[in-house]
């Protein structure tokens, strides 16, 4: 049975003979080619971290952010095509605003995730459009506490305690599984997130990168913001030290 896409992969409104929609699978590959993004949900809040690969030294640091805010209590980090992300975040902002207009309260994470998932799924139905080439990680604090969701290009979305997307997602997931997410504080999670991004980063492939970190927690008044500079510096220091320690360990073993 052929499982090559040839002929059945030209539009998203075509199934292959073995029941796959190849356009959606290709969109997932676009995500797998981008810089890593992770999310960690701990008791006190949610932390998002992104490995922002820079293609030139001429780029202004701290510009072109990949973590965005949609509705003050919602943070969105993404892996994949940035332009698609901007489209999706704009839609999320509209949905969150719309919810607030009607119900006079902040949209719960579940509702936002559902709306985003449905919106992304709609782009996998018609031949006139292509699927979104992004996996978005959604962080939110609502009445049920801290929430973390990931929406994939197929429109599939699930709640997570820890998730990763992008180039280094396998390495990142392995590291995340080792963490005890129930016990970590937000401050610790911030440091761990930084460490994991640095660990998942492949220096051989893209030398230049910038770490972007954001959180929603009590310290940020339950609003989604990028972490303050001192917290960021501390996290980077912790991450770099962890990398050096790893290198030392390898040297010792030799």
């Amino acid at each position, binding site marked *: 049975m052929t499982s090559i896409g040839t*002929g*059945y992969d*030209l539009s*998203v*409104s*075509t*199934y*292959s*003979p*073995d*029941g*796959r*929609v190849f356009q959606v699978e290709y969109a997932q590959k676009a995500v797998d080619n981008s810089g890593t993004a992770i999310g960690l*949900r701990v008791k006190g809040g949610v932390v998002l971290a992104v490995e922002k690969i820079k293609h030139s030294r001429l780029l202004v640091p701290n510009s072109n952010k990949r973590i965005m805010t949609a509705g003050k209590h919602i943070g969105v980090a993404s892996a994949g095509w940035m332009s698609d992300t901007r489209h999706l975040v704009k839609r999320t902002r509209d949905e969150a605003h719309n919810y607030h207009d009607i119900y006079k309260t902040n949209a719960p994470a*579940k509702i936002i995730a*559902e709306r985003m*998932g*449905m919106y*992304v*799924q*709609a782009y*996998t*139905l*018609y*031949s*006139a459009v292509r699927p979104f080439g992004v996996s978005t990680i959604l962080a939110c604090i609502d009445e049920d506490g801290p929430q*973390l*969701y990931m929406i994939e290009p*197929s*429109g*599939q979305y*699930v*709640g*997570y*305690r*820890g*998730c990763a997307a992008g180039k280094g997602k396998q390495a990142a*997931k392995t590291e*995340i*599984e080792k963490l005890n997410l129930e016990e970590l504080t937000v401050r610790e999670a911030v440091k761990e997130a930084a460490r994991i991004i640095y660990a998942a980063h492949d220096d051989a492939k893209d030398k230049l990168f910038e770490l972007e970190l954001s959180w929603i927690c009590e310290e940020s008044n339950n609003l989604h913001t990028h972490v303050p500079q001192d917290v960021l510096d501390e996290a980077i220091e912790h991450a770099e030290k962890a990398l050096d320690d790893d290198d030392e360990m390898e040297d010792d073993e030799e």
Partner: protein
Amino acid sequence: MSSRSANAGYDRHITIFSPEGRLFQVEYAFKAISNAGLTSVGVRGKDSVVIVTQKKVPDKLIDASTVTHIFRITPHIGCVMTGLDPDGRNQVMRARQEAAEFKYKNGYEIAPDMLAKRMANINQVYTQKAFMRPLGVSMILIGWDDERGPQLYKTDPAGYFAGYRATAAGAKHQEAFNYLEKKLKSDEPANVEDTVEMAVATLSSVLAANFKAQDLEIAVVSKDNPKFRVLSAEEIDNELTRIAEKD
């Protein structure tokens, strides 16, 4: 016979029939349902109807409480979606919308068979429009009908729907059908517990597995409790224990 030349050219466009009169895209949509890897079963008893599906959480990091394939559509009607999850949610949302619109326009709740017919008709449209693909999901719908009692319906990507005494969808649906046909020859489940038992036993048998509470999702509609109800983990545990002790 070269099947390659029969396939080439007709598969891509949903509006085109093959020379043998087949719609390949619709058949491929059915394959997508089996590929999802899950199996769901629905059984209708004398005074109750039950749906059971597997709950597989592949990743340790996933919050299991957010993973579900059972959805409530109206207070008395619910469903289990088998196949491509995003397409499933799309259909659930559409079903909720249709049911709500019906209530608004007509002043009373839609009946399960009418909702199933409506969803099937919508599915049929997707098999005739070139710019859209059929949804890769099968909806098993259960509900309480004031006049007819417990109801069980299934819709599929082809736009076909039917009422059933028992049905299944997903990877092992054929084996489940065989099992159910044999079982229903001899007895029709009389009460809720028996209906649940038959549904769970079907899944156990075709999947050759002993389930724990977290591996299953069960939802029930019964005469004593006509509201669509998803069983909690504890209730599922009780049912499984009861079934195990019976043996």
